[in-house]
């Protein structure tokens, strides 16, 4: 933890630690393989489109693109398997073991420890969505005060998680169709194709519209959020999206007096409306 302090001060600005080295590498492998898989998969889904043969040709056409698709598919499946192991390890080490040492284990306690993991959706998320709706429809001028992980991030996490189960599973079935149909009927392949390509389209649109809006195109992060590379998030973004967590960390670090007001000074609204911003 010495190497990565929770709050790092650089040139007088505070940055908040969010993702470990390991997590950032996992994310980059995920991102690269998903982009390659989309580029080598979509020309097959939309084989009649004018752009399809050109995009496919970039990856070596029908002779090589399927090989590339399988290689990156295998990387993604391996990453998913690794992630599940990693997740189990982290939960065990940081939640279950301390619990065991402190008060002993019961099934209920373990389940509770799992249910209170930071990425598990909870009531606070529902409240935040409600608050966001109020804010987006101008009912209030108070943004939801997100916790460590907001509902958007949980969505970004669980959607690919579910997607990888579906797409990875059906992909493996189609890759090993001879083996798969030893056990299961041939019609399974029809359903696999539908699930694989339709879920992939959903995943691609979800990532390139929703995820990229939140981390690339939104005015607060444009042209690109850097937390996925550096692991640190700026104070401005932190207070905008994760205000509750921000206050908590600042308080724990003994910096209560430096806590910014919620989302970038709504108090001096009169100057904001004049167009001046600082």
């Amino acid at each position, binding site marked *: 933890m010495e190497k990565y302090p929770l709050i790092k001060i650089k040139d007088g600005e505070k940055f908040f630690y969010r993702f470990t080295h390991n997590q950032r590498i996992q994310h980059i492998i995920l991102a690269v393989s998903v982009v390659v898989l989309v580029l080598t998969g979509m*020309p*097959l889904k939309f*084989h*009649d489109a004018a752009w399809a*043969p050109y995009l*496919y040709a970039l990856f070596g*056409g*029908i*002779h090589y693109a399927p090989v590339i698709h399988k290689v990156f598919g295998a990387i993604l499946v391996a990453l998913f398997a690794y992630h599940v192991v990693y997740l189990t390890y982290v939960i065990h080490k940081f939640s279950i073991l301390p619990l065991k040492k402190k008060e002993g284990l019961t099934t209920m306690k373990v389940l509770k420890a799992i249910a209170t993991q930071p990425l598990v959706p909870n009531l606070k998320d529902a409240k935040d969505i409600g608050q*966001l709706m*109020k*804010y*987006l*429809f*101008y*009912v*209030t*001028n*108070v943004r939801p005060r997100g916790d460590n992980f907001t509902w958007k991030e949980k969505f970004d996490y669980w*959607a690919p998680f579910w997607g990888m189960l579906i797409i990875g599973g059906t992909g493996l079935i*189609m890759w090993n*169709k*001879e083996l798969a*149909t*030893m056990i*299961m*009927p*041939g*019609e399974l*392949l*029809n*359903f696999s*194709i*539908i*699930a694989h390509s*339709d*879920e992939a*389209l*959903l995943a691609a*649109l*979800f990532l390139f*519209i*929703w995820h990229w*809006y939140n981390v690339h195109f*939104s*005015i607060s992060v444009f042209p690109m959020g850097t937390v996925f590379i550096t692991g640190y998030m700026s104070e401005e973004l932190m207070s905008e999206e994760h205000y509750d967590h921000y206050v908590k960390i600042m308080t724990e670090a003994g910096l209560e007096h430096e806590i910014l007001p919620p*989302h970038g000074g*709504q108090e001096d*609204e009169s100057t*904001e*409306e004049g167009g001046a911003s600082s």
Partner: protein
Amino acid sequence: MKALPRASRLIALFCFSVFLLISFTFTPSYAADVGNCLLCHKYPGISRVDEEGKLRLFYVNESIFSNSVHAKVKCEGCHTDIKKIPHDVAKKVDCLVECHIIEPSSEKKFSHKDVKEFLGKSVHGPIDKEGKEKKYIEDYPTCKDCHDNPLYRPLSFFKKVRPGISEASLGRCRVCHKKEEFIYRFYNHVTTRLHKSRNPLNIAEVCARCHDNPEIVARHEMSTKAVFSYGETFHGKAARFLDERVPDCLDCHISKGESVHQMLPKEDPASSIHADNKGKICTNIDCHPSASPKLAKYSVHAEFNLKQSPAQYFFTVFFIILTGGTLLPLMFIILLDIIRRFFPNATIGRRK
């Protein structure tokens, strides 16, 4: 059509005369045709408007024709009604005539007549088992509905198998065979026939002329627009990207070792796609030899419509709803968020 002005007509006539003059003067003659038909038919403009008002082109491109499988057949071999030059309106070619070629294994005059017999017994034959004409007899294919004059498509086999002519192999032919023209033709003939003369996409396109025609599909109560549904499978998509390794219509619908003209309906126990034989299609040595016969239960011609394949239809609809249900609300939030950022502190409620 509006008549051209007089001056334009004169200019056009002049250009055409110059073109003719140049053509006659400088075009070298390759004429291998005994009847000298190319004397006229070598001109790209040779055409006429027939009785139905259709423009018909009669140009024969000699270099293309001499690379086709019929290059050795004299024009009169197929156009049997033409006896003199200039000739009258020629009849349509009948592919079943005996042409002048001697078939070397039987030393009889060559003809495609046997094909008619094969076709007659197949699902594409116009006469049913009781000897009666089938319904909509005009829909049943004849030779030229599927065939044109195919070009040679030789394979080179020396160190590798690839398209084209292997000069290294030809060198070995020359040891015994002296006539260059014979060597090329024999090589082309044999190696062209060792594989398909058309790629899977071309084959599918031929079948699609009838099997994707909604009227014909409805008239003959076929269960699918066959090439459309094939196009939705990986095989069909790969064919679209010009993969030659994937199966086309003929690979599954013809039993190994038979002519494509012997295609049988799926109810016929001898048909390759009969329920009892279907398993063997996929597990054949060139395709998925390690698969179980269950692989053939894959529905190749599923169309994602409620009537033909309801389970798949509902499965697809589920994903459409899932996609719409996920993305539309999120996109709506993005839109609201973009607008909201112009007025970050505006509210109709109590300002906090």
